[in-house]
């Protein structure tokens, strides 16, 4: 893998993550102007749920609530750096740089540990 393709791969992951997140958040924001954050584009009854409760993301999305789109967009945004590290592991491995593939894999492991184990 050339240095340029390496850079394009990693920056491509970041661009996809950022564009997907921004699109979802912007859609949620635009829809909230029409029906309110807790309203529903699908005609479901309004429920005054807690917008900060991300456990409700699935049901918010199922009911086409704007708050659900924004929640999904934020989750995609927060997951983007993790995806970038994972892509770097793959890129260093393909390049045959075992030292940096190893270093990056440890970073990914520590990152996933702190996300899923520490709390």
């Amino acid at each position, binding site marked *: 893998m050339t240095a340029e393709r*390496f*850079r*394009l791969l*990693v*920056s491509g992951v*970041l*661009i996809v*993550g*950022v564009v997907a*997140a*921004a699109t979802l*958040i*912007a859609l*949620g*924001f635009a829809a*909230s*102007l029409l029906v309110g*954050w807790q309203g529903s584009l699908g005609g479901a009854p309004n429920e005054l749920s*807690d*917008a*900060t*409760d*991300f456990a409700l993301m699935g049901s918010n999305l199922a009911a086409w609530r704007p*708050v659900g789109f*924004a*929640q999904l*967009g*934020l*989750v995609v*945004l*927060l*997951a*983007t*750096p*993790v995806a*970038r*590290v994972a892509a*770097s592991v793959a890129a*260093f491995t393909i390049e045959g740089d075992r*030292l*940096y593939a190893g*270093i*990056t894999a*440890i*970073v990914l492991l*520590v*990152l996933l*540990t*702190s*996300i*899923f184990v*520490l*709390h």
Partner: protein
Amino acid sequence: MTIGADLGIFVLSLAAGVIGALAGVGGGILVVPALTIVFGVDIRLAIGASIVSVIATSSGAAAAYVRDGMTDMRVGMFLELATTTGAVCGALLAAVVAPAALFILLGIVLLFSALQQVLRLGEELPPVADGSPLAARMRLVGTYPDARLGRDVPYAAQRVPLGFALMAGAGVVSGLLGIGSGALKVLAMDGAMRLPMKVSSATSNFMIGVTAAASAGIYLGRGDVDPTLTAPVALGVLAGATLGARILPRLSNQTVRLIFLPVLLAVGIETLLKGLGVGL
């Protein structure tokens, strides 16, 4: 929030994104006080929004910096080893260490570093030197395209162990205090490892998203991230960071340092005040 307030928050976040992308920091220093003081947002939700803004600045700016070769990915990944492990240690230490003294200590360190930055204001590029043997072995050498100078500028990392130790410290601090990690990262790369200022800023931008992502889950689970407040913040910061990343390659290293210096001073003062019990 009214549509007017949303618009105000968007514009403020846009500015935070531009400055963050140029200075290599997350923009939390601007977002948190502005949200609480100007828009009357609860401090807990403001901090949740600032974590999102750090990740948005990082990903938005790094997408361009990585593509353009401004970010040194080996330096970034090598140092992330230090910051992520440091952040985990910091989070574990948070239960046993009194933060007030640490805030004061960090504030003093940051303000002293500002002095060092003032002394370097006239320096466009660090003095040319061979990298340390460790830097050669770890391949922490490279070139970056300087649109301002119109050529590829070579560089080599100095004092790698010191930089690595400072980065571990930056990780502990961000895990423990949740503040100032971007500024510390720039200082470690510029001050200790003597990388060019633009490379330090772009590589710090690349790294801060990972540091923030490590703790973002905690904030999300605690209910500190309010999508209705964070939507204009995230959109504004993403737009600002994308804009900032287009500007940086055209600026001189001296201008980037001039932008970083007030940010560093503000982070230092805010951290010191926090330690003294003055909340902003």
